């Protein structure tokens, strides 16, 4: 299976790893790269708190291979340009395992560098399919893909027998990706997509869009994007008496949408990973977060926790810190994590990642809806 080139590269990396190990003795560095500042810093906080907690807990139980894990944190501001700088610095610092990045547009250019330089990367948040489509060896994730989430939403919508569905997205990688997946699945099922339109992220006035939705007389609207815009759309739609049910991906499913949309958030449908923080077996971990004064309910907290765990377990399995060997181990193994059992396919995607449809309420709570299809 191994080509000669692979052998050479493995040897070279091993040599590089040895020299790196000489520098940082008896410690395994885990890089955490994500936005600490900038407009999406709140999601970055989730990533950092999850990964830090995992490193802390692993160290408490004796570390990995008898060595302690050390977190090295990098701020990429979710800016592709800074992500490349961060990736280079990370390689520079001799880090061989990275939990990150958060935004798909940062993960993609950074992963080019990691792959070339033999750094194993596990992103806990980037859902763009393109990241793992390129046949890279060292790129993994602990989250589902847009192309997994879209069909779940679309199948649910189809099961409601809608007459007309409109799809709106925010013209960003994440939003448009999911919206396209939803549209394709709906069309396959023979449901009319009356509108497929982009808005500008950061915009605040959606009155024209809502008027258009009213005119088109749609009964369901799927929105691909994040909560700030959908919150405003919901609220302004209510003001304008638009009678339609909205649905969105996990990027809209946090309590901030309630502070913006108020009453209008009632009845919103959201596809989310099952709430890991509600699971029976995670309660101890959840308590540990609460004791530290951190909020474990964000969508990326436990995926980041799992990312660190997977890396640590992989290192233990092969008894080496060579990223290529660890990557092989990850593809073979199966890992118990707070987000369920993780198994990887050839591309580095999860074999399965479940999404559940929830109904959102105006008090910020959510209830799972019974799914007839799937």
């Amino acid at each position, binding site marked *: 299976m191994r080509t000669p080139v692979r052998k050479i590269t493995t040897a070279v990396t091993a040599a590089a790893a040895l020299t790196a190990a000489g520098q940082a003795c008896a410690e395994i560095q885990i890089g955490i790269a994500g936005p600490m500042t900038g407009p999406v810093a709140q999601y970055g906080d989730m990533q950092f708190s999850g990964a830090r907690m995992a490193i802390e807990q692993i160290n408490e139980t004796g570390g990995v291979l008898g060595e302690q894990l050390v977190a090295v944190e990098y701020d990429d501001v979710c800016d592709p340009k800074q992500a490349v700088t961060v990736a280079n610095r990370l390689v520079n610092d001799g880090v061989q395992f990275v939990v990150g990045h958060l935004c798909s547009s940062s993960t993609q250019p950074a992963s080019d560098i990691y792959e070339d330089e033999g750094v194993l990367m596990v992103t806990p948040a980037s859902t763009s399919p393109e990241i793992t489509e390129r046949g890279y060896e060292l790129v993994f994730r602990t989250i589902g893909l847009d192309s997994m989430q879209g069909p779940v939403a679309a199948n649910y919508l189809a099961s409601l027998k809608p007459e007309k569905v409109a799809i709106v997205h925010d013209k960003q990688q994440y939003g448009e990706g999911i919206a396209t997946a939803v549209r394709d699945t709906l069309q396959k099922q023979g449901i009319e997509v009356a509108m497929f339109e982009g808005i500008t992220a*950061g915009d*605040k006035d959606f009155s*024209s*869009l809502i008027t258009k939705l009213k005119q088109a007389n749609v009964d369901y609207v799927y929105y691909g994007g994040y909560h700030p815009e959908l*919150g*405003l759309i919901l*609220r*302004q739609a209510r003001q304008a*008496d638009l009678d339609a049910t909205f649905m969105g991906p996990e990027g809209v499913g946090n309590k901030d949408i309630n502070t913006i949309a*108020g009453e209008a958030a009632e009845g919103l449908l959201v596809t989310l990973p099952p709430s890991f923080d509600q699971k029976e077996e995670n309660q101890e971990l959840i308590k540990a977060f609460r004791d530290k004064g951190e909020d474990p309910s964000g969508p990326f907290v436990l995926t980041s926790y799992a990312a660190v765990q997977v890396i640590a377990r992989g290192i233990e399995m092969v008894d080496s810190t060579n990223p290529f060997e660890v990557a092989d181990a990850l593809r073979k193994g199966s890992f118990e994590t707070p987000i369920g059992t993780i198994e990887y396919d050839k591309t580095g995607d999860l074999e399965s990642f479940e999404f559940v449809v929830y109904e959102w309420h105006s008090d910020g709570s959510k209830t799972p809806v019974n799914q007839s299809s799937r």
Partner: protein
Amino acid sequence: MQDLLYFSQQLINGLTIGSAYALIAIGYTMVYGIIGMINFAHGEIYMIGAYTALIAITGLATLGIAWLPAVLIVALICAMIVSSAMGWAVERTAYRPVRGRHRLIPLISAIGMSIFLQNYVHLAQGSRNIGFPALVEGGLQFGSGEGFQMSLSYMQITIFITTVICMTALSLFISRSRIGRACRAVSQDLGMANLLGIDTNRIISATFVIGAALAAVAGLLLGMYYGSVDPLFGFIAGLKAFTAAVLGGIGSIPGAMLGGLILGVAESLTSGYLSGEYKDVVSFGLLILILLFKPTGLLGKPEVEKI
């Protein structure tokens, strides 16, 4: 009939946003008219106005005061005071020391100020979008029970009326009051006005304060109309308002009004009939087109090249 209703609805949407743009554009146009600089930080002042109003509203709610007119008036006054103070302070610290230097110097200073203020609010209040309570709800409905119904919300009516009041008050102020006359004199010829005993520094400060106060009004109105605030939303609105000011002819107050309305309607109709993705392309394209045929904007005075 259906199409007409749809068209009027989009027109109303556009006019609402347009009149708010106009309120912000006044700040740009007055400052430009007097000292010939683009006050890039004006959008941030509008954002700070919206934040202050929200803080005041939330504070009153915590105190248990819920009588709507009182809440609105207190919020408006707070926002106007803070924004005006901000406008004054910005002029004093960042613009006055560089006045009269090369055209680019105040511009860079203004861009720096804009970045500074954005991050100031970001650090103090976080980067999240914060919901603005809906205080004025409900509206009027037009059209038959079947099919498309046109709605005119009370909030939209409030925005129209407030804008008209502000604009009338401003016009009266500029044309009748002493300070207003001094403003006009300064914008005609700063040096001459100075010789005639007008304290030009005070007049310039006054224009910043007036512009900032109007931006605060827009901040409160749009905050309620849209439904959320974040530290970055001033920049986009500022850019649009500036475009409106240039469109109408920078330096001219009726021009700012006209430019704001045209821009708002153009955006709304583009989203309504084409696609929302292209509304910024259309508004900037419109600007370029108008400037090509009328290089000083719709109502701007043609510039005479002095030798």
